[in-house]
C-alpha cells in the first residue's frame, strides 16, 4: 500500500513538474505579404478549407486547442507544428522559387489525393478539418490549376 502511495506521489510530482517546461507557441498576429492567400487569387471555399484543415500546422499561426496548455500534449503538438512548417509554410509561399512552388503543389496534390493530409491524428480531434469528397476534388482542382499556371 505504501509503495503505491509513493508511486502515485512521484508520478504526480513529475506530472506537475513537466507543466513548467516552456514550449514555443506558434502564434503570430501578422500575416506576411508572402502568404498563399495574398499571393494567389484563391476562391473563398478553398481559402476557408485551407485555414481550417492546413494552416494550424502549415503557417505561423495555430488556433490552439485547450489541451495545448497541458503537458505532454503540448510537446506533441509543438513537434508536429515544427515538422509541418518545415515541410510547407503557407505564410512563406511568395518566397519560394517557382521550382519549389511546383514541388510543393505536386506534394500537396498527392497528399490530398492519397488521404495522407490532413493527418488522421489531427482530424480525429478536429472533425471540421476533414475533407469531404467534393472538397478534395475542389482543392485538387485548384492546386492543379495553380501548378499549371506557374
Amino acid at each position, binding site marked *: 500500500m*505504501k509503495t503505491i502511495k509513493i*508511486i502515485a506521489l512521484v508520478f504526480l510530482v*513529475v506530472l506537475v513538474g513537466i507543466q513548467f517546461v516552456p514550449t514555443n507557441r506558434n502564434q503570430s498576429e501578422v500575416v506576411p505579404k508572402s502568404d498563399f492567400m495574398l499571393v494567389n487569387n484563391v476562391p473563398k471555399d478553398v481559402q476557408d478549407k485551407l485555414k481550417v484543415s492546413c494552416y494550424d500546422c502549415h503557417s505561423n499561426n495555430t488556433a490552439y486547442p485547450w489541451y495545448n496548455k497541458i503537458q*505532454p500534449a503540448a510537446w506533441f503538438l509543438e513537434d508536429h507544428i515544427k515538422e509541418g512548417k518545415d515541410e510547407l509554410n503557407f505564410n512563406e509561399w511568395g518566397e519560394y522559387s517557382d*521550382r519549389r512552388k511546383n514541388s510543393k503543389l505536386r506534394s500537396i496534390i498527392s497528399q490530398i489525393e492519397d488521404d495522407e493530409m490532413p493527418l488522421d491524428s489531427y482530424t480525429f480531434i478536429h472533425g471540421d478539418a476533414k475533407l469531404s469528397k467534393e472538397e478534395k476534388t475542389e482543392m485538387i482542382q485548384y492546386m492543379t490549376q495553380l501548378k499549371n499556371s506557374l
Partner: protein
Amino acid sequence: MKTVKVSLGVMAMAFAVISTSCKNNEKNSNTTIEDAATERAVPMEENRMESSNAAQTDASLTTYLELKNALVNDDQEAAAKAGEKMVGQLKTFKTENYEQNDQQELQDIIEDATEHAEHIAESPIGHQREHFDILSKDMIDLIDIVGTSQKLYQAYCPMYNNNKGAQWLSVTKEIKNPYYGSKMMDCGEVQREIN
C-alpha cells in the same frame, strides 16, 4: 528499500517519456554493404576550372544513378542510402563559378533537389518514387546548365503519376523503369540523348 527502487523506476520512466518527446532525430545509419550500383559516372578530365565544376555535378549524378538503380530494383533501403548521400553532395555544391543568371537558377535547383533527396532518405518506396520524379527534373535542368562528360539518355514513362508522365536519366539506352520497377520494367522510351 523496495519502495526506493520502485520510485526510482517511476522516475526513470518519466524521464524516458520526457526525453523521447524531445525527440532525438538520429537517423539509423544503415550498415548495408555497398549496393550493387552498376552504373557510375566517369569523372572527366578537362581544364582545371571546368573539371572542378563538372566534378561536383558528376558526384551527385553518380549518386542519382545509384538511386535510380535502387528504385529499378525495388530496393527502398538502397534508395534511402543514396538519397542521404546525395543530400551531402548537393549541400556542398558551389555555384559561384557560373554566370550570374545561372547562379540563381542553380541555387533554386539545388535547394529543391536537396529537399527531395531528404525525403527519399526517409520515405517508403512509393514516396521515394514521387520525389524521384521531381528530382529527375531537377537533375535534367542542372545538367542542362552545368553539363556533364557522361553519355546519358533521358527516358520517359508516360504512365506514371496518373498518366502525367515522368522522366529519368540513365547511362544505358535500354529501358529499366525506376517508377514501376519489376511491375513494369520496360515501360518507357528514350526521349533524348545527352552527349
